[in-house]
């Protein structure tokens, strides 16, 4: 068990001849606290897997250092790092039985057979694999195989962290949910650091205590699901988390208040006027409501999702999405909308500008 620290880690894959290297990972300094469950969330190609492979040592970063507690492990090979990793496609050793599969990491490290037996049975019990222990691993279903991959990580009592690289991609939807709750349960039982890579926000938000959102090779925000929802630090986080994502509207700043097409949007967190850069105002669709007094809009589309409706409206050429409760009436004539002043965020060049007062 260890706290994992990244110090200015960067990574570039070898570029094609004659081209400048493109950084898959741009300067990340990050502490992964011991025993926490993290989710690494981001779109495909944002550097999540690169980051994961740097932790496990499958990749050596081009620059920067990785520490486990106080030990510099940057150049330490994978097998010496005590890291377990579960991959997107289940990896099982086909010729072995389930038991031998689970015992493999222990036997490779020269553990005595009595301990191996004890640990394997313990882990098989946790993962509901006991009945299959004597079967050939190749005969199992995808979720069974993925459990084996996971079991091979759990079987070692000394792992510093278990890393998951989109482990549920190939699992059937109804089993996904089961396996995910199993993971969460396991985390609570054994308390080992888990880092879970996914591009599915639901997966990330349900699994993790802390979500690390990555975008274009950089970590843009680390926070609890609530923080990510309420106060996205970057427009990407606002857009990526939530369904539908945050509304972003171009604005000017006048006396601390954002002005959108001559409509002053009252905010409870005024900002300073001298922002250099492109300013936008961000507000979640959940915090936009119809009002008697406000910005006049045209209703474009209403999607009824059962529990709520997503209404798309337009002011000038700007599209605004809003989430409206089932029972709420949608005005038929000259609708106007209003933004919740507490929930208005202002971004300058895509980064959040912290409001002046409370919270």
């Amino acid at each position: 068990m260890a706290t994992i620290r990244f110090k200015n880690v960067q990574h570039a894959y070898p570029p094609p001849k004659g081209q400048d290297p493109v950084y898959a990972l741009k300067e990340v300094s990050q502490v992964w606290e011991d025993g926490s469950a993290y989710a690494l969330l981001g779109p495909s190609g944002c550097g999540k897997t690169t980051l994961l492979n740097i932790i496990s040592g499958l990749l050596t970063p081009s620059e920067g250092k990785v520490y486990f507690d106080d030990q510099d492990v940057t150049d330490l090979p994978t097998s010496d790092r005590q890291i377990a990793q579960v991959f997107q496609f289940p990896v099982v050793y086909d010729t072995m039985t389930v038991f031998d599969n689970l015992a493999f990491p222990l036997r490779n490290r020269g553990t005595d057979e009595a301990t191996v037996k004890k640990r394997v049975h313990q882990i098989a019990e946790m993962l509901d694999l006991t009945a299959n222990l004597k079967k050939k691993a190749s005969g199992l279903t995808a979720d069974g195989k993925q459990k084996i991959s996971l079991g091979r990580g759990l079987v070692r009592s000394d792992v510093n962290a278990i890393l998951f690289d989109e482990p549920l991609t190939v699992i059937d939807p109804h089993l996904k949910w089961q396996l995910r709750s199993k993971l969460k349960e396991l985390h609570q039982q054994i308390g080992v650091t888990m880092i879970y890579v996914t591009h599915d926000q639901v997966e990330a938000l349900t699994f993790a205590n802390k979500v690390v959102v990555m975008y274009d090779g950089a970590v843009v925000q680390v926070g609890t699901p609530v923080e990510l929802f309420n106060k996205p630090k970057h427009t990407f986080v606002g857009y990526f988390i939530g369904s539908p994502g945050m509304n972003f509207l171009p604005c000017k700043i006048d006396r601390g208040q954002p002005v959108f097409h001559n409509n002053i949007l009252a905010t409870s967190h005024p900002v300073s006027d001298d922002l250099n850069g492109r300013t936008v105002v961000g507000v979640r669709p959940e915090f936009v409501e119809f009002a008697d007094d406000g910005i006049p809009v045209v209703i474009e589309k209403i999607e009824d999702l059962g529990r709520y409706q997503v209404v798309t409206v337009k002011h000038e050429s700007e599209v605004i999405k809003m989430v409206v409760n089932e029972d709420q009436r949608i005005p038929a004539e000259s609708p106007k909308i209003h933004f919740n002043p507490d929930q208005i965020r202002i971004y300058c060049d895509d980064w959040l500008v912290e409001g002046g007062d409370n919270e």
Partner: protein
Amino acid sequence: MNKTLNQKAWWLVTPVLILVAFNAFIPLMTVVNYAFQETFGNNVFFWEGTTWFEQVLRSDRFHDALVRQLLFTGMILAIEVPLGIGVALTMPRKGHWASVCLVLMALPLLIPWNVVGAMWNIFALPEIGLLGHTLNSMGIDYNFTRQPVAAWMTTVLMDVWHWTSLIVLLCYAGLSSIPDDYYQAANIDGASRWAIFRFIQLPKMKRVLTIAILLRFMDSFMIYTEPFVLTGGGPGNTTTFLSIDLVKIALGQFDLGPAAAMSLIYFLVVLLICWVFYTIMMRNEEQ
């Protein structure tokens, strides 16, 4: 429900059936014909029953050729399979060198059998051949036209040179199909190089390796052209394998009956060994 009858497909199948009939079925039946009868020409046949079969199966000559054949096939498989796997494992997976290696590996396979025989004949000639001359000038007495051991070694070496590539290419294909995840997982599980080979690479290569071994077995068991050009079955009879012997009996001595009987026995031996090997491999697969 009315199904429309359409027999037009027969027009597409018939040419193939005719072709198979003429190049496989009819010749095979002719051989069967000769194997059970005696003829003195003019299409006059006398029934002989199993006489020819008994004669062939009892003859020392057939036994010797069969033993030589088994020994030869065993030797080339014992060399080519491990060597092929070894080479496939060391070949680069990506980049320019991968293509270069693949082309180099494929080259021997593109050379016609008799050319291979002729090349090795010249290569191994004791006075002027590169191999023969080099060995002799190093003080090793080497003459494949006179020494049985030298003839054997040269024949085996020639086959290894010609056909190891096939095993390499098939194994390489098998290895290329293994996702990186497996190696990474093995790395994380702390597997040794040997364990990676034993539990990941070998199982994944098993299917193609089965095919490779079957192909090499059949081909080498029926080998004719290369040793015929290289040694002509000599010195003496030391490199006379089954097919060479068969041709000697059929065309050299014109003993059509025994030759036909031998062909059928030969055919059944190949069939039997292939079947046994394949069944064993597939049974392992199922378990």
